[in-house]
């Protein structure tokens, strides 16, 4: 039993700024979390000191800097909590529980030559850190990123800087190609097929809305490329206590997985994507 590896810390807000479109980014000083975090993990944040909103809000770590002790989250305003967070002020303290979730360990990229990242909307947030780490390891990385419209796209400069290939699309064509992530993924898969890499040396990970995940799962079904997906669900605790974040397992014996501790990253073939 690994003990006391998750912490609830009062994190100092270093900065909050508006990014491209509707996205916001906060950098928080939380060295205990920064030093432990893996890509695709998340934190659970107390938005303000009040009983309403009552629950913490989960956000993926979009970047981590263990040397200076900071973590970064990137979010879109979709409701009350995410709106209140835009009012955070530098030097104020917010309660942050983390690092949470299984995340992606060092073995994830072992023997891999190419990593295919598929992101929709805010699903880009956790993908960013994974992309950076993959490039650090010299793994060829391609990001296929889409959203409904330009203002719902997050900034991908950081991945561009580290040499990640980036294909962006929007449903309304307001930025990048016009179309869905799957359209673009189909194209890229064809190109990759031409490279004749052993599927064992490839790996893909998707993060975004359920319909998108379902569509890419379909697409990858025809390949032998292992596909991982990172899920979201309503969470009460974020650390495995309440069973609230259940997602149905494909194996009926297994019943449900908890997104917060068994996930958020699953092998796509292990979970049933229910349309909520």
């Amino acid at each position, binding site marked *: *039993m*690994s*003990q*006391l*590896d*998750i*912490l*609830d810390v009062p994190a100092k807000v270093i900065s909050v700024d508006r990014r491209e479109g509707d996205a916001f980014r906060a950098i928080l000083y939380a060295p205990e979390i920064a030093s432990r975090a893996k890509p695709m993990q998340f934190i659970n944040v*107390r938005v303000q000191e009040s*009983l*309403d*909103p*009552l*629950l*913490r809000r989960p956000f993926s770590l979009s970047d981590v800097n263990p040397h200076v002790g900071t973590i970064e989250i990137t979010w879109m305003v979709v409701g009350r909590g995410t709106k209140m967070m835009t009012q955070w002020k530098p030097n104020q303290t917010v*309660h942050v*529980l983390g690092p949470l979730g299984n995340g992606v360990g060092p073995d994830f990229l072992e023997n891999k030559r190419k990593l295919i990242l598929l992101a929709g909307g805010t699903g880009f947030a956790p993908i960013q850190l994974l992309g950076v780490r993959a490039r650090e390891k010299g793994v060829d990385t391609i990001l296929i990123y889409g959203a409904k419209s330009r203002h719902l796209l997050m900034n991908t400069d950081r991945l561009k800087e580290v040499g990640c290939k980036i294909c962006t699309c929007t449903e309304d064509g307001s930025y990048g190609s016009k179309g869905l992530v799957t359209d673009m993924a189909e194209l890229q898969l064809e190109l990759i097929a031409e490279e004749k890499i052993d599927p064992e040396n490839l790996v893909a990970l998707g993060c975004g809305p359920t319909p998108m995940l379902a569509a890419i799962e379909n697409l990858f079904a025809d390949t032998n490329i292992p596909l991982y997906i990172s899920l979201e*669900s*309503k*969470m*009460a*605790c974020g*650390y*495995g*206590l*309440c*069973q*609230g*974040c*259940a*997602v*149905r397992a494909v194996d009926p014996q297994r*019943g*449900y997985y908890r997104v917060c*501790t068994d996930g958020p990253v699953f092998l796509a073939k292990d979970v049933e994507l*229910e349309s*909520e």
Partner: protein
Amino acid sequence: MDLSVDVGGFVVKNPVIAASGVLGYGEEYARVGNIDWFGAVTVKGTTLRPRHGNCPPRIWETPSGLLNSIGLQNPGVDEVITHYLPQLAQFDVPIIVNISGETYEEFQEIAKKLADCPHVTALEVNVSCPNVESGGMAFGTDPGSCYRATKAVRRSWPGPLIVKLTPNVTNISEMAKAAVDAGATCVSLINTLLGMAIDIQNKRPALGNIKGGLSGPAVKPVAVRCVWEVFQSVSVPVIGMGGVFSWEDALEFIMAGASAVALGTAVLVDPYAPKKIVDGIQSYCESNGIDSMSSIVGIAQV
């Protein structure tokens, strides 16, 4: 200072108990906090056979409250006994097993299995779960059924016996009396209030199971009122719960008549809540010259 208190046949070192359903079997919590911050821990509702639980979504936030429809997801009593309780018993904290049956016979059978397990300090009979179809809350909304369910457990379980009551009734005192008549050594309350929410974006109920149980600070005034009423009706100790988030909340329950409090939702939102609350009660007592918990239990009763 000594914060220990008797809760009907067993003593807890402090009056802050983990409520059923929010601590799993301790494994996950132990990664974040210390289980022995609690005076006792209650495990998730345990049934005869394993249950996978209800369809998601299972969680919905409401103003200062939480709706859940977990649906007694648990590995079944046998697995709980062989696998989970030994593991939880590592921590030096009394274990209360919350049990739920679909029939009186099932209640008796579960209790019997647990009577042979060395790790169990007390049973908590759940006659109040709003999240299962058969049995569940039904046992707790009629004094006769409440009596029979308690009696069924009493037959095969000789130890401390807590009956957990539902607030979704016209008269909770009647239920408490029936439980005590049938042999309960303690009553705990409240289980969740029956509630629901509509997801207006999807134009349908927010929870997969439609209705759910409401917990958290929102229900505290109802819970305190129930503790107040039950304290007047029975002479066994009362474990109070429903929205305890701070040491002030804990004292509110204690002054209304609870010998101890249990934390449910608070643990989900703030893993360190038990420690903060125990420390808060401790310093309150010290600075107010209170030298035993029992001297303030029910002190607000007029």
